C-alpha cells in the first residue's frame, strides 16, 4: 500500500503524530496575515499533487487510527450517529459517492465491484470485504450512512433541502469542534449557526446559504475553517466537555509547543443525486504548534493572526484565556519579514527565520 498508516491514539496517552510529509501537506488555513469570516468557497476539483485538495475524499496516514477512535466514540455514545427516517436515500447516495470516489482515487486501497444492484466493497486498510444489495438496508450491518462513515475520515452532515433552507436531518459526528449533532438534529441552517458571533451581522449566513442551495451535481465546493485544541483530541464534543475542557488549563510555557494544536477543518459540499440532499463532510486535521513552526512562513503568519484576532472570535474559538501564553511562544517565530500570499508553505522560496 502506498500510505504507511500510523498506529496512534487521540486520547489518554495521545500518541498521535504527523510525519514530515503530513506537516508539509497540512491545510494551513490563513491565506494572509489576518483573519476574518468570509464566504471563502471555491470549487472542489482537485488541487496540487499530494495536497489535501487533490482527491474528493482525502485518505492519509491517520486513517486507520481515526476509524478506531470513531468506533470507540460510538460505542460510548450511539447518538453521535443519527439519521431521520426520510434521509435513508441520502445515506445510499453518500455510500455510493464515497465508494466510487475512493475506489477510483485510491485503487490500491479500495475496490468496488458492481453487477447491477449487487455490490462488493473491499477496504484493504480496514480489512473489510462485504457484498450487499444496493438500496437494500437489510444486507448491510448498519444503515448506509453509518456503514460508510465508519470507514471515512471526518464528520458528515447530511442536509435535507426544502423550503429554501437546509436541515440537519442526518449525520455522523465524532470529531467535532464543540457542537452536538444530537442537539442540532432537525434544525435549519440559521438555527444551528445561531451561536456564531459577528457573522450574522455581516450577512455571512444569508449569502452562504444562497451559495449552498445552488450547489449542483457534478460541481462540489470546499472551504477551510479552523479553531484551537489542546492535545490532539478528535472528539471535542459538548457531551464530553467535562473530559477535555479542563485540559486547556494544563498548558505551560514548556509544553505549549507540543500540546497546543491548530485544528483545521476541510469542509466540502456535494449535491447528492438521488435524494437532492447536500452532504457536508467536515474533515479535521490537527498539527502541533512546534510542527507548524518548522515552516517559517506559517510561524510568522500564525503569530500575526492570533495576535490580531478580535476578542469575540478568540472567545468563541475557546482560546482567549490561553492567548497571552500562545503569543509568548509564537512571537519567537516572527522576525517581522513579509510573507508570501496564499496558504502553501513555500519552503523553497520563503526565507528561514532570522535569529
Amino acid at each position, binding site marked *: 500500500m502506498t500510505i504507511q498508516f500510523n498506529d496512534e491514539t487521540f486520547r489518554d496517552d495521545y500518541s498521535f503524530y504527523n510525519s514530515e510529509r503530513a506537516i508539509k501537506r497540512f491545510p494551513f488555513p490563513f491565506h494572509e496575515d489576518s483573519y476574518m469570516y468570509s464566504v471563502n468557497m471555491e470549487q472542489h476539483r482537485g488541487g496540487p499533487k499530494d495536497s489535501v485538495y487533490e482527491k474528493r475524499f482525502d485518505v492519509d496516514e491517520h486513517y486507520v487510527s481515526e476509524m478506531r477512535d470513531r468506533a470507540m466514540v460510538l460505542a460510548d455514545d450511539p447518538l453521535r450517529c443519527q439519521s431521520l*427516517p*426520510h*434521509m435513508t*436515500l441520502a445515506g445510499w447516495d453518500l455510500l455510493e459517492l464515497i465508494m466510487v470516489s475512493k475506489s477510483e482515487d485510491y485503487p490500491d486501497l479500495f475496490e468496488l465491484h458492481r453487477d447491477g444492484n449487487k455490490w462488493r466493497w473491499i477496504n484493504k486498510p480496514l480489512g473489510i470485504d462485504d457484498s450487499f444489495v444496493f*438500496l437494500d438496508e437489510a444486507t448491510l450491518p448498519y444503515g448506509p450512512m453509518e456503514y460508510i462513515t465508519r470507514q471515512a475520515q471526518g464528520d458528515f452532515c447530511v442536509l*435535507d*433541502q*426544502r*423550503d429554501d433552507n437546509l436541515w440537519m436531518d442526518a449525520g455522523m459526528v465524532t470529531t467535532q469542534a464543540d457542537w452536538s449533532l444530537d442537539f442540532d438534529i432537525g434544525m435549519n441552517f440559521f438555527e444551528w449557526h445561531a451561536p456564531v458571533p459577528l457573522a450574522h451581522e455581516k450577512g455571512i449566513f444569508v449569502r452562504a446559504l*444562497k451559495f449552498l442551495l*445552488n450547489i*449542483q*451535481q*457534478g*460541481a462540489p465546493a470546499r472551504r477551510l475553517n479552523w479553531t484551537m485544541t489542546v492535545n490532539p483530541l478528535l472528539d471535542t464534543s459538548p457531551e464530553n466537555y467535562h473530559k477535555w475542557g479542563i485540559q486547556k488549563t494544563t498548558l505551560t510555557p514548556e509544553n505549549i509547543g507540543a500540546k497546543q494544536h491548530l485544528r483545521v477543518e476541510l469542509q466540502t459540499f456535494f449535491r447528492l*443525486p*438521488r*435524494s*437532492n440532499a447536500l452532504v457536508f463532510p467536515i474533515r479535521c486535521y490537527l498539527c502541533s504548534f512546534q510542527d507548524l513552526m518548522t515552516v517559517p512562513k506559517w510561524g510568522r503568519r500564525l503569530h500575526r493572526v492570533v495576535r490580531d484576532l478580535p476578542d469575540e472570535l478568540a472567545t468563541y474559538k475557546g482560546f482567549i484565556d490561553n492567548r497571552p501564553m500562545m503569543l509568548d511562544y509564537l512571537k519567537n517565530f516572527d522576525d517581522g519579514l513579509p510573507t508570501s500570499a496564499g496558504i502553501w508553505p513555500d519552503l523553497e522560496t520563503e526565507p528561514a527565520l532570522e535569529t
Partner: protein
Amino acid sequence: MSGAEKIAVTVTDVVPLNDLVTRFEFKRADNGLLPTFSGGAHTVVEMRDGDITRLNPYSLMSDPMDQSRYCISVRRDDEGRGGSVFMHTRVKVGDEMVISYPVNLFSLDLRAKKHLFLAGGIGITPFLAQTKQLERFNGNWELHYACRTESLGSYVDELTSHHPNETHIYYDDKKQMIDLVNLLEGQPLGTHVYVCGPKGMIDWVRKTATNEGWPREAVHYEEFLAPQPGKPFEVKLAVSNKVIQVGEHESLLEAIERAGVDAPYLCRGGACGQCETNVIDYAGNFIHRDHWLDDDEHAGGQKIMPCVSRFEGKTLVLDR
C-alpha cells in the same frame, strides 16, 4: 463558466406522441453512464441554430435510476421564440447535442406520508420521473392529470395501464374538472401536494390549498416560464463596459451572453434566482415576469431577472 456542468450526448430516439408533443432520448456521446438524478430535476438543452444558441430547460421524465439514457418531452409552441420548434423540426436521431447535469428545483419532500400530484398538459413530465422514483421505494402517491383532449393526452395510456389505482385523468373537451376542494379535504395528514402546469392552474391550486388551510411548506409547484418576445431595447452593461441591443425574439440574458459576457444562470425560467442582476440606473418601465423577486422588488427598480424579464424605455444600466 455559468450554468451547471455540461454533458455531450447523442440523440438516440425521436418519438412524436401527438400533434404537439415529441419525446427525445439522449445517451452519452462517449457511451458512458449518465448521472443519476432525483425526480423533478430538469436539464438545460443547448440548441445551436446558426448564430443563435438557445438554452431551454426540460424536465427529465425517464427513470432516475436509469443511467443509460435521459428522456425529455417537448411541447411545440408555435408562438414562442423558436426553441421548441427547433427541437421538433431540426433535431434528428444521431445528432450530437450538449445538455446540462440534472438540476432539481422541484424536489419531492421525502418526509411526506403521501404525494399528491396535479398535472396540467405537458406539466406531466416531472411526475413521470417522480412516480418511477417512488415506485422503487413503495411510496404512496396519487396523480390527477388534466389534458385538453384524449388525443393530446401524452402518456395517459402508460399511466392508466401501469398505475390504474393511482391515476385519474380529466379531459377539458369533456368538461371534466379536478374536484380540488374535495380532493384536498380528503387527504390524510402529512400529504404534500405538487402542481406542474399552466400558470392559471398553479395559481388555482396554491390559492385553494391556502384557503383549505394547507401549510405553505406542503404545497410545491414548478412553472418554467419561456422568455416572451417583446420590443427591442438597449442596455448598458457597466462592469463589462458594453452597450448591447436586445432583439425582439431573444431574452436579455441571451443578449448578454451573445455579447460575450459570462452571466450566472441555472433554470433560465425565472424560478431559481441565479441570474438576479442589480440595476444601476434606468428611465422607463420594467416588464418583470419572474417568480423569484417579490412584489416590492418588482416595484423597486433595483433588480431584474434577465432570463425572462424585459424593459421598455430610454435607459437601462446593469451591474454586469
